[in-house]
């Protein structure tokens, strides 16, 4: 299996390299358009300018990116742990699911931008409010997919575990969890992007550091180049995080069709 994991990882790296090439191509096109039509840099700064500014101001931006990353990852972790635990509870106590699901949906339909100020008021404008906002926005897809994945085993497999006299923990750990992993990872990648959005929104509402805070400062200074540069760093961080999750998926469940990538209908 070692060899096949290596080849799967290689495949992932190739996919990423391909994505990077597309991205660079798109940037080149964008650059040409901006230069060709003389678009004002207030509206859309040329990519080269943005990257130049980014390198120039990296020393300023980096600490803020660090803060946002800590908030986002803490929120992600919190959301993942709670979502998985709740999904298992829902599996074993179906009435609980009828209770939790509507609440989760309601929570999801309330715009975070409305919820964020409330949370900042209750939790203060430190890191805690951002972690909670990040967790809130990362929670929903993970919970839904984990709950779905845990029940998506086939009846014969369940009967096999019954006939082998497995108890509920054994059925959970040796059958349900492995079956749910591909579902879970699909949503973890969404959550990886979401948690950065959550953290940045929280900072935007009220903070003294972080990407959201810095972006707001640049916006008020009408420093559009740096605004773009700042926001881009968190986008790239989220992208890298989602990519890392994909690598973990390949290592943890190489059997998943998703990560095999070759058996699509």
């Amino acid at each position: 299996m070692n060899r096949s994991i290596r080849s799967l990882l290689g495949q992932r790296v190739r996919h990423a390299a391909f994505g990077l090439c597309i991205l660079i191509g798109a940037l080149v096109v964008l650059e040409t358009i901006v230069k060709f039509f003389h678009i004002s840099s207030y509206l859309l700064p040329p990519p080269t300018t943005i990257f130049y500014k980014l390198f120039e101001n990296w020393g300023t931006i980096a600490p803020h990116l660090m803060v946002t990353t800590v908030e986002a990852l803490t929120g992600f972790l919190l959301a993942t742990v709670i979502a998985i635990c709740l999904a298992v509870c829902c599996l074993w106590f179906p009435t609980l699911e009828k209770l939790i699901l509507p609440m989760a949906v309601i929570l999801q339909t309330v715009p975070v931008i409305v919820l964020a100020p409330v949370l900042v008021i209750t939790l203060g404008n430190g890191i805690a409010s951002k972690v909670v906002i990040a967790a809130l926005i990362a929670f929903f897809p993970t919970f839904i997919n984990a709950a779905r994945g845990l029940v998506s085993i086939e009846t014969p497999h369940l009967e096999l575990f019954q006939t082998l006299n497995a108890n509920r923990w054994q059925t959970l750990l040796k059958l349900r969890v492995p079956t749910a992993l591909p579902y879970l990872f699909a949503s973890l990648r969404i959550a990886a992007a979401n948690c950065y959005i959550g953290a940045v929104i929280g900072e935007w509402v009220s903070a003294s550091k972080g990407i959201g805070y810095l972006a707001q400062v640049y916006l008020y200074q009408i420093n559009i180049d740096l605004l773009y540069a700042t926001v881009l760093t968190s986008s790239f961080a989220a992208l890298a995080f989602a990519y890392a999750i994909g690598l973990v998926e390949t290592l943890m469940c190489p059997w998943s069709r998703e990560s095999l990538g070759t058996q699509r209908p």
Partner: protein
Amino acid sequence: MESRTDITVSARNVGLDYNRIHQQAITVLRNITFDVKRAEFVVILGPSGCGKTTLLKTICGLISVTEGELIVDGEPPDIAKSRHKAVMSFQDACLLRWRTVLENVRLPEELGDQRTGNAAAMLELVGLSAFANAYPDELSGGMKQRVALARALNCQPTILAMDEPFGQLDEPGRATLNDELLRAWKNTQVTVVFVTHSVPEAVYLADRIIVLTQRPSTIGRVIDVPFARPRNAFLRSDPQFFALCNTISAILSSPAA
């Protein structure tokens, strides 16, 4: 008392109704009485939907009978199940794709209270030692069924209930696996209750064939299969073999069945 240890499955007037959601309950089994002797090979035949799978599930303690008495190795089926005495194998091999072949065969050792077993020996018995570290996705349908057989045998069951295990295989593959199964059966002295819809397969394997009627099903006929063991491919071209197959096919297709 002595006769009791000779009998592994004893059904007395067994009946079973399925309670269905939003529908009337249906009676699947009715008044079923039979015994299976220790180390006997019994095949169950019957029209599709008559309750063969259901009958196996009651023997293995997956569902309980609603009428009559069913005793498995001297105990109620659910107790027998909890001691890994009666184990069911399915039409689909039901292998876990995240485990290697050997890890799949080892599964029963990790479940329930059972902590013994010999996965490597069971794999050897079905001739798949060379594939111990392969993954199920890399195996053919026949090989998967052999792994499933090894896994079931690794429970060291008293009774092995098999539900159309080779139904999805082609004829030659099925014949090979029939021979493998007979060899494993002889080596382990396990009692086999085997469901199939192939009459030749039934005749080739069985000591005794139980023919069920249409639902609500009861036992239509019990046929002793007289052919000597060990059986081999020559039997399949024996005129007596054909004759018995024809007789049973006639019973199955008669309206009374």
